[in-house]
């Protein structure tokens, strides 16, 4: 019941933000429902269910690797589990980026997900209890996060944002070519806000980014995210 209420509130809040900013999730490349579909073909999102091809995703955050009692892990994965790691943002991120690189010979038949933004969307879902009907999650974008929402609700000073954007452009090119520093245009505004907040609260650990965001106020983030989200 609690799950249902959360889900409902996520949906309602998203709807609210969508109406007010025209930031429609359906236009976004960060559609969780689409991104999660391949996962859900093999993984259950409730601990009770059995008979799935892979281990359950319910409660995966904080769980030690290789410890779903209802799943029989590959030898390769059992050996990896002996390192004693826990599924957290870093391990999940590494695994999703390159499953075979993370545990060579593991049983998951999935090539990995290269887009930082898409991976982050899945991580956000996995780290915040991936339960419920994924179809109903399609509007559960980052605008449902209260901290993101409070920034999205601010008036964005676009001229100010254009000035601030100069700070970003020293490192982030406005082209689709990507190296270690990802492009930050063509992303949704709520995702940009979410990502900047994660640097501010230390969830993301790139030291250059942490330094840059340390001087950004909520007003700055509102302005910057608006400017970059408009760049096609």
């Amino acid at each position: 019941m609690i799950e249902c209420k959360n889900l409902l509130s996520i949906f309602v809040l998203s709807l609210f933000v969508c109406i007010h900013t025209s930031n429609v999730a359906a236009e976004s490349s960060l559609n969780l429902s689409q991104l999660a579909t391949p996962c859900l073909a093999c993984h259950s999102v409730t601990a009770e269910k059995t008979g799935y091809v892979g281990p359950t995703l319910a409660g995966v955050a904080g769980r030690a690797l290789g410890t779903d009692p209802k799943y029989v892990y590959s030898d390769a994965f059992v050996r990896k589990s002996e390192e004693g790691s826990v599924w957290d943002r870093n391990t999940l991120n590494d695994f999703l980026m390159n499953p075979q690189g993370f545990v060579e010979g593991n049983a998951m038949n999935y090539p990995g997900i290269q887009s930082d933004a898409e991976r982050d969307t899945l991580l956000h879902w996995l780290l915040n209890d991936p339960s419920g009907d994924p179809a109903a999650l399609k509007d559960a974008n980052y605008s449902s996060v209260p901290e993101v929402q409070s920034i999205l609700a601010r008036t964005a000073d676009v001229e100010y944002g254009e000035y601030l954007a100069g700070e970003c452009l020293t490192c982030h090119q406005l082209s689709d070519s990507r190296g270690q520093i990802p492009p930050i245009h063509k992303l949704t505004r709520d995702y940009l806000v979410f990502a900047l907040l994660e640097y501010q609260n230390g969830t993301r650990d790139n030291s250059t980014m942490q330094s840059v965001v340390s001087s950004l106020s909520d007003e700055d983030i509102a302005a910057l995210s608006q400017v970059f989200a408009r760049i096609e």
Partner: protein
Amino acid sequence: MTSVTRRQFNSIIGVGAASMVVPPSLLGQSKPRVVVVGGGAGGATAARYLAKDSDGQLDVTLIEDSDTYTSCFYSNLYLGGFRTFNSITHSFGTLASAYGITLKKGRAVDIERESKMVVMADGSTIGYDLLVLSPGIELQYDSVPGYSEEDSQIAPHAWQAGKQTEILHQKLNELENGQDIVMVAPPNPYRCPPGPYERASMMAHFLSNKGYTDSTIYILDPKDKFSKQSLFSAGWEHYYPGMIEWYSPDIHGGILSVDAKAGIVETDFDTFEGALLNIIPAQKAGAIARTAGLADENGFCPIMADSMRSIVDENIFVIGDASIAGDMPKSAFSANSQAKVAAMTIRGQLLSSRVFPAKYNNTCWSLIALNDGVKVGASYAPSDDGTITATSKFVSQGNEDATVRQQTYEESISWYSSIVSDMFG
């Protein structure tokens, strides 16, 4: 939700010039003239941001003596074999073709500040309403006893990229196993604080790759410590054992003389012989800044922290290595960051656009060995005492694993490509 206007869109993606329209209010009168001296990380960025953000309402001229720009940053990676010379050499062409910037080839030697004119080496003058000065550094050859500009053909400094970089590269390639390198490092303040030590790393990498591990690189330093010292020292011990020896003034006791032709550096402690001498002298602001009276007694130019405007002349902005930018090091990243503050301030003054509080950033990446990159950096803001002050700092840690170091290196490669596009379009 308002939609993106053409102007906003152009100003962000930076292709404004092709569609620039002169507003009727300005027809029939000349546009405000901004002249930028120096086409490096500071000057090119300033010119580009002035042009792209002003919708053609400014007449922007960039004065530069060279046909192309070879970046001093990443020239060490050329020595190490990680980059080609071409990959660190860039054209000014797009600044003219896509941004409408007037390129003026030649050497600016002085400024007639009363009449607001830049004086060129050939005696011609170029008038301005506001001037951005980004002349970089001038080497003080006589700061190293016995060394001269002429000697730099034999014992290159390679601290201004281009021909000098090629000389150093060639001499490094000609070394045989067991032949030594003697580097004289510069005193503070100087361009690119980690640069000499990254250079030693890259030269050692190059030699080590050839199996020339009997050669030694001696660094004779006028300073008793240097940027990212513990990271470099640990890297040298790990990758190049016995190949790099660093001597502080406590040990060498002072550099007494350099004989470039003989390949000898005499110190109070000992005589060092090298088949290759790399002499990096003390530095001051580019000559034009000092000739025009914009520098202080130490040879660099004091500026206002909120704008990069010269304290000496309100019509001139000094950015990059030539400026005294508080806690900011003399780096390409710093110059690029300062250029944006200056450009924003200038547009505010000449075009009445809004002026915002200055924000600055810097990161200096260095490569120690293959896939082993480190970085140091900070964010900055003007402080109450009128200087640019760090508000947060970071530096790579000594205990980082190989994945992090590789990511740091790859980040630096990404950054290079980005800043070049931010400078030249």
